[in-house]
């Protein structure tokens, strides 16, 4: 049962496993698992995949009232730039909950691809909370079907100067990269056509189902 649960845990998105994979596996090892738990692991993985989890996104779940409260997003600014070996994004997004409270999320994201390896930097802040920086370096591995098995190391840099390190073997969906490029192109064309960042965001949300969202 535990071996099956560990196998099912691989259904979670790669970036999520890079962050939570080791502790989640530790929980599975400690828990006296039932068949219902296995279903719960599968459902949890599907929910994360539907949102295509990344450290700045908000996963959704049907039974969580707080999920329904943070669904209204306003893209205040989003800059997208090509740089040598990759691209970077800078965004300011306002989240409004059902009770009217607002959270301002600022993010800087950079991805560099060196052929056999890659590096991402994700710097994120929410309101007055201290910002965190996530750095992922990955070595591309074997490709099987739509997935590539990578070896990654994630560093989480905290505002107090401490660093947390997590090494993982993760599966990356190759389709996401193509979808992400298409989204960036659509976004740029929208801006050229005179739309505001938020209008382009709304257009993208209408045109693309959640499964096809980029992972970063």
């Amino acid at each position, binding site marked *: 049962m535990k071996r099956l649960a560990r196998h099912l845990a691989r259904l979670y998105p790669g970036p999520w496993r890079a962050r*939570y994979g*080791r502790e989640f596996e530790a929980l599975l090892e400690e828990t006296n698992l039932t068949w219902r738990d296995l279903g*719960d692991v599968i*459902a*949890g993985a599907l929910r994360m995949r539907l949102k295509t989890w990344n450290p700045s996104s908000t*996963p959704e*779940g049907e039974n969580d009232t707080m999920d329904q409260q943070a669904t209204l997003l306003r893209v205040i600014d989003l800059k997208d730039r090509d740089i040598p070996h990759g691209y970077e994004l800078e965004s300011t997004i306002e989240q409004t909950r059902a009770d009217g409270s607002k959270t301002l999320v600022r993010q800087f994201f950079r991805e560099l691809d060196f052929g056999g390896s890659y590096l991402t930097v994700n710097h994120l802040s929410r309101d007055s909370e201290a910002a965190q920086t996530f750095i992922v370096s990955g070595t591309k591995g074997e490709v099987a079907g739509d997935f590539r098995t990578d070896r990654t190391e994630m560093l989480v840099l905290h505002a107090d100067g401490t660093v947390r390190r997590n090494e993982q073997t993760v599966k990356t969906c190759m389709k996401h990269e193509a979808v992400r490029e298409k989204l960036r192109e659509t976004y740029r064309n929208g801006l050229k056509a005179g739309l505001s960042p938020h209008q382009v965001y709304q257009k993208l949300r209408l045109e693309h189902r959640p499964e096809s969202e980029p992972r970063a």
Partner: protein
Amino acid sequence: MSDPALLVLASLAGGDKHGYAMMEDIHRFAGVRLGPGTLYGAITRLEQRGWIRPLKSSDDRRQPYTLSAAGRQYLEEQLSGLSQVVRTGLKRLRHA
């Protein structure tokens, strides 16, 4: 109260815990056994919102979490709302 995120916050209000300890604690105080996927879905959301944060640990697999000041405030607001509902419901039942 069956909202997984609120249960996690309530568990951490009693002290820092890793995932398995939260699961056991929630089972004891609420009679609800959260599945591993549900528990970590809640942990993910709460950390992203800054309501809980991971603590440094010598064990790199059993990650303990603690309640942040914002998480404590949110929990207090939610619980006082719930307690008003409970008081009103009980009063109406007595008069029914």
